[in-house]
């Protein structure tokens, strides 16, 4: 082929012209594709509850014994298909009770009053504002939802590496060492189960918030737990925090837990 300077310049000019015209053709192609079927719309339920950062206030003064906590744990674990394993090492839990010195190890003075020492305290995922589990997750299976601050699990993405469990300072996460299905006492058919090899934890009942209901434990608590927007000064949780002395778990770590305890 004759590759004179003139020929090369001509080719270059033609190529750049073709590149300039390409977006026009692209636009045509797109219009045609859209014309085939109108696009569907995806939106939120208008009933959905909204907040900048959901928070919970637990009034520990109103919980005396394990029996007071049991119905709330039961309500949560039942609707979320949380399995019950006899073996402690396989245990899966979303919300549970621990003694004071386990819930607040940095605030446990010596020679505590017997009442505080023996009373059970509710613990669950704190839905931290600065969650270390989210930073540890290599697949973004756990993430902090920007719209309402809930730390969520996407079980489709979880690869079961358990980095999040190591990163969480509250032990809020459980791993499914075994297939959980046979260990679910009563299956709630409207909610999925989990499979072997994924991590699970409390989800602040996103599925209930999305249809305008409060979390199951809050509903079952008859006012002992409060749930609301931490950044709305008029919300019930802010009023409770403002009018009572509250503590949070391991606050010094800087994860900014969103679960407050009135003591």
């Amino acid at each position, binding site marked *: 082929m004759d590759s004179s300077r003139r020929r090369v310049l001509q080719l270059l000019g033609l190529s750049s012209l073709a590149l300039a015209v390409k977006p026009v053709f692209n636009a045509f192609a797109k219009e045609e594709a859209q014309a085939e079927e109108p696009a569907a719309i995806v939106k939120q339920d208008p009933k959905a509850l909204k907040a900048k950062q959901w928070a919970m206030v637990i009034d520990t003064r109103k919980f005396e014994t394990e029996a007071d906590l049991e119905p709330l744990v039961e309500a949560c674990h039942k609707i979320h298909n949380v399995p019950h394993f006899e073996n402690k090492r396989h245990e899966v839990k979303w919300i549970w009770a621990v003694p004071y010195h386990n819930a607040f190890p940095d605030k446990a003075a010596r020679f505590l009053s017997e009442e505080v020492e023996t009373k059970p305290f509710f613990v669950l995922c704190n839905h931290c504002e600065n969650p270390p589990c989210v930073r540890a997750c290599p697949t973004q299976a756990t993430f902090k939802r920007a719209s309402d601050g809930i730390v969520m699990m996407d079980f489709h993405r979880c690869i079961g590496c358990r980095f999040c469990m190591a990163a969480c300072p509250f032990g809020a996460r459980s791993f499914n060492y075994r297939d959980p299905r046979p260990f679910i006492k009563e299956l709630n058919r409207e909610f*999925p189960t989990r499979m072997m090899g994924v991590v699970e934890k409390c989800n602040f009942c996103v599925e209930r918030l999305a249809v305008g209901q409060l979390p199951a434990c809050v509903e079952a608590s008859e006012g002992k737990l409060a749930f609301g927007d931490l950044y709305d000064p008029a919300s019930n949780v802010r009023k409770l925090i403002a009018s009572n002395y509250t503590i949070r778990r391991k606050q010094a770590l800087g994860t900014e837990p969103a679960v407050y305890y009135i003591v």
Partner: protein
Amino acid sequence: MKDKKFIVAGVIVFIVIATFPFWYNRGKAAPAPVTLLTEKAKAAKVCVRSTEYMKAEHMQLLDLWRESVVRRGERVYVSPGGRQYNMSLSNTCLDCHSNKTEFCDRCHDYVSVDPYCWDCHIENPKEKT
């Protein structure tokens, strides 16, 4: 070259074994599966999208649904026809298509795909255990 007959015999045996599935199954192509609709699905007439779209793209649709529901919290799907649906595999899809074995499994078995939806999502939401 005195091993020639062994080599030729070996090659022939190999070809016969390697092509065995083809000539053994010749003319016996499995019929394309027929999916059954439940009474409820028949009565509803329309799915969330057209039948052709659902046949070809239901996996992309479900992928969009899971992304939208889990990660963005948007749970209502407004179909091009203007109907609203709760984006849920167990509670919406399987509400009409409650016959998973005759609806989902037939095609999935035919094309030899094994989606792991059912490891977590409950496959027969309406049936009592």
